[in-house]
């Protein structure tokens, strides 16, 4: 008896030890934009977009592993490395693109906060400024690290989607087949379809995650000696994120799409996907989950962006510095939050639309970040014997190529 208890405890401890940067990053990845994009994908296209999940997951594992390996080998952040290897001008424009992209993501997180609480009839004019203030203080006061655990536990909410997905009695056969069938070639001429595919990839493999993950690995002081455990952390995290994503799409396809709801106009529509699990109270569950996910990511995104940009461009950064010692850092951080939350208060601002759009922008910017990651992880002077394997290069370059082609196709079909 005590023997099994002991074994169980050891196992729990092992699991907690594995919950590292990789797992946290993957969890934050299913943020407001993520939940919303997966929901829209399931509602609008049913099971037909599921084919994208397997290649996207493989690419996710490969890309995240590259980022954490780079962090462990070099002990430097991604933007530092880009600056040191490619110079100031390239770094400047890449950081500019990242700020714009992440600004969209920050908007999406606050939109998630607003949209989740609007289910309770609370006005966004109260919720958004309040959430922005809470996030700002949480990080600047240094209380974030304590709250992170609460966020992490609360993100177990995603399990709801797995249960709801099962209870919705989806057409398992159709869902499984949809995963492995060749995508419909007609989709390549359909703007809405391409938009959604890019959004799906962009939300699963967001550019900012690579910067954040690598920085966390460096911050934790993980070196190449302890790297084996970190690799598992990354893989487990990615798989968990992908399974959740799959079930959100399936749950939405089985409930909304089959019921003919193909356009999600509000959070109330999306909440219906949880009806098989929670019935009448589906909206409660959905609101709580979306709220947690949004606030979690909103606490990480602006500060991570501020760090990335300041380190790449050589501005003072760090919460241990005073405001006047690191003005650019604090201003950038504050502006991202204030402006990101502020625009949502413009009358008639389309909250739901912006959550998906920001993820599409992620998808469009992704290949450019990936190219730099690929060049860096293949640099023998930098990585020594830990350069990319050929398989990793092939997968990552295919990802770069496909994302650029998809974006071009989307731009052409738009007219």
């Amino acid at each position: 008896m005590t023997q099994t208890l002991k074994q169980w405890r050891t196992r729990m401890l092992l699991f907690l030890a594995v919950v590292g940067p990789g797992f946290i990053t993957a969890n934050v990845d299913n943020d407001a934009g993520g939940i919303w994009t997966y929901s829209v994908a399931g509602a609008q296209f049913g099971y037909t977009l599921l084919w994208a999940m397997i290649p996207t997951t493989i690419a996710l594992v490969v890309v995240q592993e590259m980022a954490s390996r780079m962090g462990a080998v070099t002990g430097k952040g991604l933007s530092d490395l880009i600056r040191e290897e490619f110079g100031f001008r390239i770094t400047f424009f890449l950081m500019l693109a990242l700020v714009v992209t992440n600004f969209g993501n920050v908007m999406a997180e606050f939109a998630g906060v607003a949209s989740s609480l609007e289910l309770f009839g609370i006005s966004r004019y109260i919720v958004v400024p309040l959430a922005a203030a809470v996030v700002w203080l949480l990080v600047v006061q240094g209380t974030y690290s304590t709250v992170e655990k609460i966020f992490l536990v609360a993100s177990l909410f995603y399990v709801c989607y797995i249960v709801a997905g099962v209870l919705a009695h989806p057409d398992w056969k159709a869902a499984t087949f949809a995963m492995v069938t060749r995508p419909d070639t007609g989709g390549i001429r359909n703007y809405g379809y391409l938009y959604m595919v890019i959004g799906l990839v962009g939300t699963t493999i967001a550019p900012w995650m690579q910067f954040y993950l690598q920085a966390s690995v460096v911050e934790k002081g993980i070196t190449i000696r302890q790297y084996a455990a970190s690799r598992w952390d990354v893989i487990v995290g990615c798989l968990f994120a992908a399974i959740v994503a799959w079930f959100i799409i399936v749950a939405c396809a089985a409930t909304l799409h089959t019921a003919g709801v193909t356009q999600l106009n509000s959070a109330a529509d999306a909440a219906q996907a949880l009806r098989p699990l929670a019935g009448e109270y589906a909206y409660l569950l959905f609101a709580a989950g979306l709220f947690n996910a949004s606030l979690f990511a909103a606490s990480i995104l602006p500060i991570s962006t501020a760090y990335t940009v300041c380190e790449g461009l050589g501005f003072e950064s760090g919460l241990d510095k005073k405001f006047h010692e690191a003005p650019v850092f604090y201003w950038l951080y504050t502006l991202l939050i204030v402006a990101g939350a502020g625009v949502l208060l413009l009358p008639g601002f389309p909250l739901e639309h912006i959550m998906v759009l920001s993820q599409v922008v992620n998808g469009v910017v992704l290949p450019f970040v990936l190219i730099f990651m690929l060049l860096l992880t293949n640099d023998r002077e930098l990585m020594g014997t830990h350069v990319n394997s050929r398989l990793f290069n092939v997968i990552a370059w295919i990802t770069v190529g496909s994302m650029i082609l998809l974006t071009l196709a989307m731009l052409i079909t738009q007219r």
Partner: protein
Amino acid sequence: MIALSELLGASVRDASGAVKGRVRDLAITPQDHPTRVTFLIVRTSVGDRLLPSDAVKSFGKTLRTTDQQSDWTTYTASDGVLLLKRDLLDQQIIDVHGRKVVRVNDVELDGLPAEQHLSLHVVTVDVGARGAIRRLGKGVIPSFTLRAFLDKIPPRVIPWQFVDLIEVDPARRVKLKIAYQGLSRMHPADIADIVEDLPAAEQKAVIEALDEEVAAEALEEIDPDVQVSIVESLDNERAADIVEEMDPGAAADLLGDLTEVRSDEILKEMDKEERDEVSHLLEFGERTAAGRMTTDYIAVSADGTAHDAVEALRAFEGGPVALATIYLTGPHDTLAGAVPLVKIATAAGHTPLSALSESAMSCAPDTPQREVASLFDKYNLITLAVTDEHGRLAGIITADDVIAMLHSKK
């Protein structure tokens, strides 16, 4: 004054006046001269060529040389030269004057007339907006417009003598004469801040290159997690050299955070005297009086005179706070009293110490650190003696350790 970013990519004309290549990099050979550019690397149609700087007649958008392209030798990479673009531009350096780690945006050079030619010297390193905007605008904005605009931006530059380079390879550090003289002169707490700001490999490199005594003082001030990762990366011998120089209490805390195997290996390399002290301290719990105490204190026989105390002060090698109190010991090292430094300083040499003595405040080795802190608060202590069950003086706790302890608990 000319900026490195303006020189890079500039066309090079040889004696015939024809463009023969473009500037790829500039090299300094620190072993010959700390600031003078010794040669340029020129990218030509037939590969990289080495252009000695004394062959350069004028610098600017185009460089004119006095010799022929055929005189330029093939460039082969060498460890002993500092390449301004590769090793300096966009890299992190230590700003000794501003006491922080900064990233280089540009390098400013100046041409000084020498005999037949111009000799080019590195003057400052640009870490501000001016260098950044110059590099953004280069080739996009006409150069005279750009120059006029840049002149309006207040410069943020570091004079070259205040720049300490960070080089991970120890052999190359020697060749480039990187000795961290500037860094060594800084306050240990400032060195600690700088080291904490660096990536792991660079942390190790800096600590390795510093003088043991300086490294030890800086290490004491570094965050415990970073301390551990730095010491783990050092080889045992070097780690032991540094730990020996540390305050025994701080050394014990550090070794206690390492794995037992590693801590034993380092202890084995240490001198017997320091090893005994540290391993003795290691036996106590970290959060007790004994875990916080140091064995670097001044103790004089209670029969002695003020003169004996002054002699003991002269011989003392520990920290400045421990100097504040001279402890008196009776038979078998039992604590017999304490004399504040002020009293020694104002007393005549022949005054017996017993006449100056005050009753000494002390606590047991297993006193929890929280109680230690309240003793300091209540009695306004600077130091506190720790005595064992027989009343023997085992060590002292100093006020700075208590402040550090309270601060770290926040």
